[in-house]
Protein backbone atom coordinates (compact mmCIF):
# COMPACT_ATOMS: atom_id res chain seq x y z
CA UNK A 1 0.00 0.00 0.00
CA UNK A 2 1.09 3.57 -0.48
CA UNK A 3 -0.03 7.06 0.47
CA UNK A 4 1.07 10.63 -0.03
CA UNK A 5 1.14 13.58 2.36
CA UNK A 6 3.03 16.74 3.27
CA UNK A 7 4.47 15.60 6.60
CA UNK A 8 5.04 12.18 8.20
CA UNK A 9 5.40 12.29 11.96
CA UNK A 10 7.08 9.21 13.40
CA UNK A 11 5.95 8.67 16.98
CA UNK A 12 2.74 9.72 18.73
CA UNK A 13 4.03 10.90 22.08
CA UNK A 14 3.48 14.48 23.24
CA UNK A 15 6.15 15.82 20.84
CA UNK A 16 4.79 14.02 17.80
CA UNK A 17 1.17 14.83 18.54
CA UNK A 18 1.85 18.54 19.07
CA UNK A 19 3.78 18.65 15.78
CA UNK A 20 0.98 16.82 13.97
CA UNK A 21 -1.72 18.97 15.53
CA UNK A 22 0.07 22.24 14.72
CA UNK A 23 0.94 21.21 11.16
CA UNK A 24 -2.57 19.88 10.46
CA UNK A 25 -4.17 23.03 11.88
CA UNK A 26 -1.99 25.04 9.48
CA UNK A 27 -3.58 23.14 6.62
CA UNK A 28 -0.91 20.52 5.93
CA UNK A 29 -1.72 16.93 5.09
CA UNK A 30 -0.23 15.03 8.03
CA UNK A 31 0.22 11.33 8.74
CA UNK A 32 1.38 10.32 12.24
CA UNK A 33 2.75 6.83 12.81
CA UNK A 34 2.81 5.05 16.15
CA UNK A 35 4.55 1.69 16.29
CA UNK A 36 2.66 0.57 19.35
CA UNK A 37 -0.87 -0.65 19.14
CA UNK A 38 -1.87 1.53 22.07
CA UNK A 39 -0.72 5.14 22.26
CA UNK A 40 0.82 6.04 25.61
CA UNK A 41 1.26 2.51 26.90
CA UNK A 42 3.54 1.25 28.39
CA UNK A 43 4.43 4.46 30.21
CA UNK A 44 8.12 5.38 30.70
CA UNK A 45 7.75 8.48 32.75
CA UNK A 46 7.19 9.97 36.21
CA UNK A 47 4.42 12.09 34.65
CA UNK A 48 5.13 15.48 36.28
CA UNK A 49 4.67 18.77 34.42
CA UNK A 50 4.68 22.45 35.34
CA UNK A 51 1.11 23.67 35.38
CA UNK A 52 1.61 27.14 33.91
CA UNK A 53 3.56 26.18 30.79
CA UNK A 54 1.39 23.10 30.26
CA UNK A 55 -1.80 25.14 30.28
CA UNK A 56 -0.31 27.66 27.86
CA UNK A 57 -0.03 24.90 25.27
CA UNK A 58 -3.16 22.80 25.80
CA UNK A 59 -6.49 22.99 27.53
CA UNK A 60 -6.20 19.87 29.68
CA UNK A 61 -9.12 17.46 29.91
CA UNK A 62 -9.84 16.56 33.54
CA UNK A 63 -8.95 12.90 32.99
CA UNK A 64 -5.44 13.78 31.76
CA UNK A 65 -4.52 14.86 35.26
CA UNK A 66 -4.05 12.36 38.06
CA UNK A 67 -3.49 15.03 40.70
CA UNK A 68 -2.34 18.55 41.31
CA UNK A 69 0.49 19.13 43.77
CA UNK A 70 1.26 22.04 46.05
CA UNK A 71 5.01 21.94 45.89
CA UNK A 72 8.16 19.89 46.14
CA UNK A 73 10.03 18.48 49.12
CA UNK A 74 13.71 17.63 48.77
CA UNK A 75 15.45 15.22 51.12
CA UNK A 76 19.17 15.29 51.80
CA UNK A 77 20.99 11.96 52.22
CA UNK A 78 20.88 12.49 56.02
CA UNK A 79 17.07 12.67 55.90
CA UNK A 80 16.68 16.40 56.53
CA UNK A 81 14.36 18.12 54.10
CA UNK A 82 13.35 21.44 52.57
CA UNK A 83 10.17 22.50 50.82
CA UNK A 84 9.84 24.42 47.58
CA UNK A 85 6.41 25.67 46.74
CA UNK A 86 4.53 25.53 43.49
CA UNK A 87 2.20 28.42 44.42
CA UNK A 88 4.40 31.21 43.13
CA UNK A 89 7.31 30.12 41.04
CA UNK A 90 7.99 26.40 40.95
CA UNK A 91 7.44 25.51 37.34
CA UNK A 92 9.00 22.05 37.71
CA UNK A 93 5.94 20.19 38.89
CA UNK A 94 2.33 21.19 39.27
CA UNK A 95 0.35 18.40 37.67
CA UNK A 96 1.02 14.72 37.76
CA UNK A 97 -0.49 13.41 34.53
CA UNK A 98 -2.09 10.13 33.57
CA UNK A 99 0.14 9.62 30.54
CA UNK A 100 -1.87 6.73 29.09
CA UNK A 101 -4.91 8.99 28.88
CA UNK A 102 -3.03 12.21 28.10
CA UNK A 103 -0.93 10.84 25.22
CA UNK A 104 -3.99 9.34 23.58
CA UNK A 105 -5.95 12.53 24.20
CA UNK A 106 -3.27 14.63 22.54
CA UNK A 107 -3.13 12.25 19.56
CA UNK A 108 -6.91 12.65 19.33
CA UNK A 109 -6.49 16.42 19.21
CA UNK A 110 -4.04 15.96 16.32
CA UNK A 111 -6.57 13.71 14.61
CA UNK A 112 -9.36 16.22 15.14
CA UNK A 113 -7.16 18.92 13.61
CA UNK A 114 -6.99 16.74 10.51
CA UNK A 115 -3.96 14.49 10.98
CA UNK A 116 -4.26 10.84 10.01
CA UNK A 117 -3.11 8.63 12.90
CA UNK A 118 -1.86 5.14 12.11
CA UNK A 119 -1.25 2.85 15.10
CA UNK A 120 0.73 -0.40 15.09
CA UNK A 121 2.66 1.16 12.22
CA UNK A 122 6.44 1.18 12.45
CA UNK A 123 8.79 3.24 10.30
CA UNK A 124 11.47 0.97 8.81
CA UNK A 125 13.59 3.59 7.08
CA UNK A 126 13.66 6.72 4.98
CA UNK A 127 12.80 6.60 1.28
CA UNK A 128 15.42 8.52 -0.69
CA UNK A 129 15.33 10.28 -4.03
CA UNK A 130 18.48 11.93 -5.42
CA UNK A 131 20.05 11.62 -1.96
CA UNK A 132 17.20 13.47 -0.26
CA UNK A 133 14.51 11.89 1.95
CA UNK A 134 11.15 11.68 0.19
CA UNK A 135 9.12 9.67 2.69
CA UNK A 136 9.26 6.60 4.87
CA UNK A 137 8.88 2.89 4.40
CA UNK A 138 6.73 1.43 7.12
CA UNK A 139 5.11 -1.75 8.31
CA UNK A 140 1.44 -1.36 9.16
CA UNK A 141 -0.03 -4.27 11.11
CA UNK A 142 2.67 -6.37 9.52
CA UNK A 143 2.01 -5.20 5.94
CA UNK A 144 4.37 -2.95 3.94
CA UNK A 145 3.28 0.67 3.59
CA UNK A 146 5.07 3.31 1.53
CA UNK A 147 4.47 6.92 2.48
CA UNK A 148 5.59 9.66 0.16
CA UNK A 149 6.25 12.97 1.93
CA UNK A 150 8.80 15.75 1.50
CA UNK A 151 9.14 16.26 5.27
CA UNK A 152 9.70 13.69 8.01
CA UNK A 153 9.47 14.44 11.74
CA UNK A 154 11.37 12.09 14.04
CA UNK A 155 9.47 12.13 17.32
CA UNK A 156 10.43 8.55 18.01
CA UNK A 157 11.71 8.88 21.53
CA UNK A 158 14.82 7.73 23.36
CA UNK A 159 15.22 4.85 20.89
CA UNK A 160 14.98 7.23 17.91
CA UNK A 161 16.09 5.93 14.53
CA UNK A 162 14.90 8.73 12.26
CA UNK A 163 17.86 10.96 13.16
CA UNK A 164 20.37 8.19 12.56
CA UNK A 165 18.79 7.35 9.21
CA UNK A 166 19.19 11.00 8.23
CA UNK A 167 22.84 11.04 9.28
CA UNK A 168 22.42 12.71 12.67
CA UNK A 169 24.26 10.80 15.38
CA UNK A 170 21.92 10.75 18.37
CA UNK A 171 23.74 7.98 20.27
CA UNK A 172 23.72 8.78 23.97
CA UNK A 173 27.02 8.36 25.84
CA UNK A 174 26.53 6.59 29.19
CA UNK A 175 27.22 9.80 31.08
CA UNK A 176 24.33 11.43 29.23
CA UNK A 177 21.47 9.06 30.00
CA UNK A 178 19.62 8.51 33.27
CA UNK A 179 18.49 4.93 33.73
CA UNK A 180 15.18 4.85 35.56
CA UNK A 181 12.92 2.38 37.30
CA UNK A 182 9.59 3.18 38.86
CA UNK A 183 6.74 1.47 40.68
CA UNK A 184 3.20 2.71 41.01
CA UNK A 185 2.82 2.37 44.76
CA UNK A 186 -0.15 2.40 47.09
CA UNK A 187 0.86 3.35 50.63
CA UNK A 188 -0.80 5.38 53.43
CA UNK A 189 2.65 7.00 53.88
CA UNK A 190 2.44 8.82 50.57
CA UNK A 191 2.17 12.59 50.68
CA UNK A 192 -0.65 13.40 48.25
CA UNK A 193 0.20 17.09 48.08
CA UNK A 194 3.94 17.21 47.45
CA UNK A 195 6.31 15.71 44.96
CA UNK A 196 9.27 14.36 46.89
CA UNK A 197 12.88 14.11 45.77
CA UNK A 198 15.45 11.99 47.63
CA UNK A 199 19.13 12.70 47.06
CA UNK A 200 22.06 10.48 47.90
CA UNK A 201 24.71 8.34 46.26
CA UNK A 202 23.52 5.22 48.04
CA UNK A 203 19.88 5.80 47.05
CA UNK A 204 20.53 6.81 43.43
CA UNK A 205 24.13 7.37 42.31
CA UNK A 206 24.34 10.60 40.27
CA UNK A 207 20.58 10.84 40.12
CA UNK A 208 17.70 10.97 42.55
CA UNK A 209 14.70 9.02 43.77
CA UNK A 210 11.19 10.49 43.64
CA UNK A 211 7.63 10.14 44.75
CA UNK A 212 5.11 11.81 42.42
CA UNK A 213 1.63 11.48 43.92
CA UNK A 214 -1.27 10.38 41.75
CA UNK A 215 -4.04 10.91 44.30
CA UNK A 216 -5.56 8.75 47.03
CA UNK A 217 -2.28 7.56 48.52
CA UNK A 218 -0.99 6.36 45.18
CA UNK A 219 2.32 7.57 43.74
CA UNK A 220 4.94 7.00 41.08
CA UNK A 221 7.90 6.00 43.24
CA UNK A 222 11.05 5.70 41.21
CA UNK A 223 14.67 6.58 40.72
CA UNK A 224 17.17 7.37 38.05
CA UNK A 225 20.90 6.71 38.02
CA UNK A 226 23.49 7.96 35.58
CA UNK A 227 24.28 5.41 32.86
CA UNK A 228 27.99 5.61 33.63
CA UNK A 229 27.25 4.56 37.24
CA UNK A 230 24.94 1.72 36.24
CA UNK A 231 25.49 -2.01 36.00
CA UNK A 232 23.14 -4.71 34.73
CA UNK A 233 19.80 -4.52 36.58
CA UNK A 234 21.06 -1.86 38.99
CA UNK A 235 18.16 0.60 38.61
CA UNK A 236 15.55 -1.98 39.58
CA UNK A 237 17.73 -3.37 42.39
CA UNK A 238 18.20 0.11 43.87
CA UNK A 239 14.49 0.83 43.59
CA UNK A 240 13.67 -2.31 45.56
CA UNK A 241 16.18 -1.19 48.21
CA UNK A 242 14.60 2.27 48.26
CA UNK A 243 11.13 0.78 48.69
CA UNK A 244 12.38 -1.27 51.63
CA UNK A 245 13.90 1.76 53.36
CA UNK A 246 11.25 4.38 52.55
CA UNK A 247 7.96 2.61 51.74
CA UNK A 248 8.32 -0.80 53.42
CA UNK A 249 4.56 -1.40 53.40
CA UNK A 250 3.97 -0.02 49.92
CA UNK A 251 1.93 -2.15 47.55
CA UNK A 252 3.34 -2.20 44.04
CA UNK A 253 0.67 -2.24 41.33
CA UNK A 254 2.67 -1.31 38.23
CA UNK A 255 6.28 -1.30 37.02
CA UNK A 256 7.89 1.19 34.65
CA UNK A 257 11.46 1.42 33.36
CA UNK A 258 13.17 3.69 30.87
CA UNK A 259 16.13 5.74 29.74
CA UNK A 260 16.02 9.51 29.98
CA UNK A 261 18.39 11.57 27.80
CA UNK A 262 20.41 14.15 29.78
CA UNK A 263 22.91 15.19 27.12
CA UNK A 264 21.85 18.80 26.79
CA UNK A 265 21.33 20.22 23.30
CA UNK A 266 22.84 18.04 20.59
CA UNK A 267 24.71 19.44 17.62
CA UNK A 268 21.98 19.14 15.05
CA UNK A 269 18.29 18.24 15.05
CA UNK A 270 17.66 18.86 11.37
CA UNK A 271 18.77 17.39 8.08
CA UNK A 272 17.43 17.77 4.56
CA UNK A 273 13.71 16.96 4.86
CA UNK A 274 13.99 15.91 8.52
CA UNK A 275 13.35 17.50 11.93
CA UNK A 276 13.74 15.77 15.30
CA UNK A 277 11.43 16.56 18.22
CA UNK A 278 11.36 15.70 21.93
CA UNK A 279 13.40 12.81 23.36
CA UNK A 280 14.48 11.95 19.80
CA UNK A 281 16.14 15.39 19.69
CA UNK A 282 17.40 14.84 23.27
CA UNK A 283 15.40 17.91 24.35
CA UNK A 284 14.93 16.78 27.96
CA UNK A 285 16.14 18.88 30.88
CA UNK A 286 19.46 17.31 31.94
CA UNK A 287 19.06 18.25 35.61
CA UNK A 288 15.46 17.28 36.32
CA UNK A 289 14.94 14.77 33.52
CA UNK A 290 11.68 16.49 32.60
CA UNK A 291 10.86 16.20 28.92
CA UNK A 292 7.12 16.47 28.30
CA UNK A 293 6.86 20.25 28.11
CA UNK A 294 10.03 20.68 26.04
CA UNK A 295 8.79 18.06 23.58
CA UNK A 296 5.42 19.80 23.29
CA UNK A 297 7.01 23.21 22.81
CA UNK A 298 9.43 21.87 20.20
CA UNK A 299 6.49 20.14 18.50
CA UNK A 300 4.60 23.40 18.16
CA UNK A 301 7.70 25.07 16.68
CA UNK A 302 8.30 22.14 14.32
CA UNK A 303 4.68 22.25 13.14
CA UNK A 304 4.85 25.97 12.45
CA UNK A 305 8.19 25.74 10.67
CA UNK A 306 6.89 22.79 8.61
CA UNK A 307 4.04 24.94 7.29
CA UNK A 308 6.36 27.84 6.47
CA UNK A 309 9.03 25.71 4.83
CA UNK A 310 6.47 23.86 2.71
CA UNK A 311 4.93 27.15 1.60
CA UNK A 312 8.39 28.44 0.74
CA UNK A 313 9.20 25.21 -1.07
CA UNK A 314 12.50 24.78 0.76
CA UNK A 315 12.74 21.71 2.98
CA UNK A 316 16.52 21.52 2.93
CA UNK A 317 18.45 21.70 6.19
CA UNK A 318 18.94 25.42 5.47
CA UNK A 319 15.21 25.84 4.87
CA UNK A 320 14.48 24.27 8.29
CA UNK A 321 16.96 26.46 10.13
CA UNK A 322 14.18 28.42 11.82
CA UNK A 323 13.33 25.28 13.80
CA UNK A 324 16.91 24.98 15.11
CA UNK A 325 17.07 28.68 15.91
CA UNK A 326 13.77 28.86 17.73
CA UNK A 327 14.04 25.79 19.95
CA UNK A 328 17.67 26.52 20.81
CA UNK A 329 16.87 30.11 21.81
CA UNK A 330 14.42 28.84 24.42
CA UNK A 331 14.61 25.14 25.29
CA UNK A 332 18.24 24.82 24.25
CA UNK A 333 19.42 27.70 26.38
CA UNK A 334 17.78 26.23 29.50
CA UNK A 335 19.11 22.79 28.66
CA UNK A 336 22.68 24.04 28.29
CA UNK A 337 22.49 25.66 31.72
CA UNK A 338 20.90 22.60 33.31
CA UNK A 339 23.59 20.45 31.74
CA UNK A 340 26.32 22.39 33.53
CA UNK A 341 24.44 22.03 36.82
CA UNK A 342 24.00 18.33 36.19
CA UNK A 343 27.67 17.82 35.35
CA UNK A 344 28.51 19.47 38.66
CA UNK A 345 25.88 17.83 40.87
CA UNK A 346 26.68 14.30 39.74
CA UNK A 347 30.15 14.75 41.28
CA UNK A 348 28.87 15.72 44.75
CA UNK A 349 29.35 13.43 47.72
CA UNK A 350 26.61 12.79 50.27
CA UNK A 351 28.47 15.11 52.63
CA UNK A 352 28.28 17.90 50.04
CA UNK A 353 24.59 17.24 49.45
CA UNK A 354 23.89 17.31 53.21
CA UNK A 355 25.72 20.62 53.48
CA UNK A 356 23.76 22.14 50.59
CA UNK A 357 20.33 21.08 51.82
CA UNK A 358 21.30 21.87 55.41
CA UNK A 359 22.32 25.39 54.42
CA UNK A 360 18.76 26.08 53.28
CA UNK A 361 17.13 25.01 56.54
CA UNK A 362 16.92 28.56 57.86
CA UNK A 363 16.03 30.18 54.51
CA UNK A 364 12.55 30.80 53.23
CA UNK A 365 12.63 29.15 49.85
CA UNK A 366 9.00 28.10 49.98
CA UNK A 367 8.05 30.47 47.17
CA UNK A 368 11.01 29.72 44.96
CA UNK A 369 11.49 27.67 41.84
CA UNK A 370 14.53 25.51 41.15
CA UNK A 371 16.49 28.37 39.64
CA UNK A 372 15.80 30.69 42.58
CA UNK A 373 16.81 28.00 45.00
CA UNK A 374 20.09 27.43 43.16
CA UNK A 375 20.81 31.13 43.44
CA UNK A 376 20.32 31.04 47.23
CA UNK A 377 22.41 27.88 47.44
CA UNK A 378 25.25 29.64 45.71
CA UNK A 379 25.06 32.60 48.05
CA UNK A 380 25.24 30.29 51.09
CA UNK A 381 27.87 27.87 49.76
CA UNK A 382 30.16 29.90 47.51
CA UNK A 383 33.17 27.68 48.12
CA UNK A 384 31.46 24.42 47.30
CA UNK A 385 29.65 25.86 44.28
CA UNK A 386 32.47 28.07 43.00
CA UNK A 387 32.58 26.27 39.64
CA UNK A 388 29.01 27.33 39.00
CA UNK A 389 29.45 31.04 39.69
CA UNK A 390 29.09 32.01 36.03
CA UNK A 391 25.67 30.37 35.93
CA UNK A 392 24.29 32.11 38.96
CA UNK A 393 25.16 35.78 38.59
Amino acid at each position, binding site marked *: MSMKCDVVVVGAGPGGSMTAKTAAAAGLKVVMLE*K*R*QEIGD*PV*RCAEGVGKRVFCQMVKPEPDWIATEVKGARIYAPDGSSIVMSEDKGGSEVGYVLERKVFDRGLAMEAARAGAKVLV*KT*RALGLRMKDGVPCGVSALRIGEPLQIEAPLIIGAD*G*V*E*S*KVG*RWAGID*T*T*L*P*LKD*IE*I*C*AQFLVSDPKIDDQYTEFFLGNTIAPAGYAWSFPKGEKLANVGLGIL*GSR*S*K*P*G*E*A*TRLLCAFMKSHFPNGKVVE*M*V*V*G*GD*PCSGPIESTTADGVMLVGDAARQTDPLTGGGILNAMQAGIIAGEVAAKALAAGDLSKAGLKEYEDRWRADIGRHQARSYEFKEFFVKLSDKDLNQLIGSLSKEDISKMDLRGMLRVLFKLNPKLLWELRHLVV
Partner: protein
Amino acid sequence: MLTVNRYKCCYCGACVGVCPAAALELVETWLEVSADCKECGICTKICPVGALEVRA
Protein backbone atom coordinates in the same frame (compact mmCIF):
# COMPACT_ATOMS: atom_id res chain seq x y z
CA MET B 1 26.67 -12.84 21.08
CA LEU B 2 24.20 -10.46 22.70
CA THR B 3 21.33 -12.30 24.31
CA VAL B 4 18.00 -10.83 25.40
CA ASN B 5 16.23 -12.42 28.33
CA ARG B 6 12.68 -11.91 27.09
CA TYR B 7 11.25 -12.79 30.49
CA LYS B 8 13.14 -9.88 32.04
CA CYS B 9 13.01 -7.28 29.25
CA CYS B 10 10.56 -4.44 29.96
CA TYR B 11 11.00 -3.07 26.40
CA CYS B 12 11.92 0.47 27.48
CA GLY B 13 14.31 1.12 24.59
CA ALA B 14 17.12 2.64 26.69
CA CYS B 15 19.54 0.12 25.13
CA VAL B 16 18.56 1.29 21.65
CA GLY B 17 19.44 4.89 22.59
CA VAL B 18 22.98 4.04 23.72
CA CYS B 19 23.90 1.50 21.02
CA PRO B 20 26.79 3.02 19.04
CA ALA B 21 26.24 0.60 16.16
CA ALA B 22 22.48 1.24 15.83
CA ALA B 23 22.17 -2.52 16.01
CA LEU B 24 19.12 -2.62 18.27
CA GLU B 25 15.52 -1.98 17.38
CA LEU B 26 12.52 -2.07 19.67
CA VAL B 27 9.46 -3.50 17.96
CA GLU B 28 6.71 -2.90 20.52
CA THR B 29 7.60 -5.51 23.13
CA TRP B 30 10.28 -7.26 21.08
CA LEU B 31 13.91 -6.15 21.10
CA GLU B 32 15.63 -7.05 17.84
CA VAL B 33 19.41 -7.44 17.60
CA SER B 34 20.84 -7.03 14.11
CA ALA B 35 24.06 -8.43 12.61
CA ASP B 36 25.63 -4.98 13.14
CA CYS B 37 26.01 -5.75 16.87
CA LYS B 38 29.68 -5.47 17.87
CA GLU B 39 29.09 -7.13 21.26
CA CYS B 40 30.56 -4.08 22.97
CA GLY B 41 28.34 -4.65 26.01
CA ILE B 42 27.39 -1.01 26.56
CA CYS B 43 23.69 -1.85 26.52
CA THR B 44 24.13 -4.63 29.10
CA LYS B 45 25.53 -2.14 31.58
CA ILE B 46 22.56 0.22 31.51
CA CYS B 47 19.69 -2.25 31.19
CA PRO B 48 17.48 -1.32 34.17
CA VAL B 49 16.34 -4.92 34.61
CA GLY B 50 19.49 -6.76 33.57
CA ALA B 51 17.92 -8.45 30.57
CA LEU B 52 20.95 -8.14 28.29
CA GLU B 53 24.09 -10.21 28.35
CA VAL B 54 27.05 -10.72 26.01
CA ARG B 55 27.87 -14.42 25.96
CA ALA B 56 30.97 -15.98 24.49
